[in-house]
Structures are given as structure tokens and as C-alpha cells.
């Protein structure tokens, strides 16, 4: 079994400030963790993933995510937000026993104010 939770429906941050979008997961096997971004009227775009190794994963557009095994979390971060980062962000988990596809969270809307 596997599941993922994104506790915040929306995150608001001022341009230039650091941002964090939270994600926690549950999986029966080793976790495979992903972040995707969705812009209006578009499909999901892959940002980054964690499989093994360094707990800090760097991805596209200056985003990074920190894997924390003890807290079962995989929060998405960026040191300095841009207005163009405003979008919908999805966390996803894979690796659960018997699962044949990723399980996606409910999404977090990021709003970056100028």
C-alpha cells in the first residue's frame, strides 16, 4: 500500500522569499518520491525525484526537495520564489508492494505575490 498527503491546499509567499510545499508519505517498501508541477490547462511536468542516495535532491527551475526518512516527508523548497512559480504542485509516491503506478497527493496551489 502507499499514500501521500499534502496538508496545505494553498501556500502564499512573497516574491524573493523562500518557499516550502509540504508532503508526507506512507509506503510499504522503499519509497520512490516525485514532485510535479501543473500550469493552467496543461498536463503535469516532472520536477524532481528521489530514489536513493543524497537526501537533498535538486530539480528543474531551481527547485529542490529534502527526503526525511524518520519524518516520512519529502518537502519541496526553493530559496527565492518567482511570480512565475505560481502553479499547482503534486507530490507522488511509488514503490509500494503490488502497486503498478504512482500515487499522487491532492495538490497544493502555490501563489507567489509580486
Amino acid at each position: 500500500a502507499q499514500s501521500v498527503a499534502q496538508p496545505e491546499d494553498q501556500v502564499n509567499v512573497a516574491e524573493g522569499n523562500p518557499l516550502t510545499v509540504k508532503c508526507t508519505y506512507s509506503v510499504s517498501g522503499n519509497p520512490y518520491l516525485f514532485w510535479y508541477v501543473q500550469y493552467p490547462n496543461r498536463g503535469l511536468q516532472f520536477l524532481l525525484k528521489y530514489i536513493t542516495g543524497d537526501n537533498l535532491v535538486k530539480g528543474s527551475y531551481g527547485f529542490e526537495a529534502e527526503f526525511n526518512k524518520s519524518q516520512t516527508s519529502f518537502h519541496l523548497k526553493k530559496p527565492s520564489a518567482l511570480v512565475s512559480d505560481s502553479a499547482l504542485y503534486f507530490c507522488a509516491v511509488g514503490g509500494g508492494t503490488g502497486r503498478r503506478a504512482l500515487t499522487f497527493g491532492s495538490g497544493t496551489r502555490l501563489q507567489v505575490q509580486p
Partner: protein
Amino acid sequence: EADIYQTPRYLVIGTGKKITLECSQTMGHDKMYWYQQDPGMELHLIHYSYGVNSTEKGDLSSESTVSRIRTEHFPLTLESARPSHTSQYLCASSLGTGGTDTQYFGPGTRLTVL
């Protein structure tokens, strides 16, 4: 350029009509997926395929059907559209096992049934 395509992007149709949503990928991926995305943002897996002539139902029950006659093509069909089918439909593909591999998404089809 390798990519994943969906047509049409937008479709408005009357109740009772038969519709087919097209999905094609040029990445040579064996695994393909259909997701339904509600206005409330969450993605629900409705169909997936391991390869040619292999299709299975996903987590969310759907009245739609799929076929996989060619590796690159994974169309979704609704025999008789109803207003409850109004949603966004996202197609995705992956190279690996599906349960752990990065999924790549098409731009989506926004379906409205009147």
C-alpha cells in the same frame, strides 16, 4: 522530439454521444496510464497498460474503456457520454515498471458533456 500528445485539447459534446480521446507517445514507453482530474485538483488513476494488448482498471471505477493495439497509442472511449463524465483527462507514459518510474504527461483533454 520525443513527446506525448493528446487530442482534442477541449471537447464539448451532448449527452449520449460516443467519444474517443486520443493519446500517443513517441518515447517508446511500454507503460501508459489514464487519469481523471476533478476540478478539486486530485488525480485518479482510471486505466493503465503494461504493453500491447495489456490493459487494466485503475483505482477509480470508470465507465470508459481503453485499448492498446500499438505501443505508441492508448485511446480512451466513452460509449455514451453523460454530464457526470465532465472532467479533465490526462494521459501519461513511463519506461520502467510503472510503480517506481517517472511518468510523463500529455497536455490533457478537458471534456464537457452537456
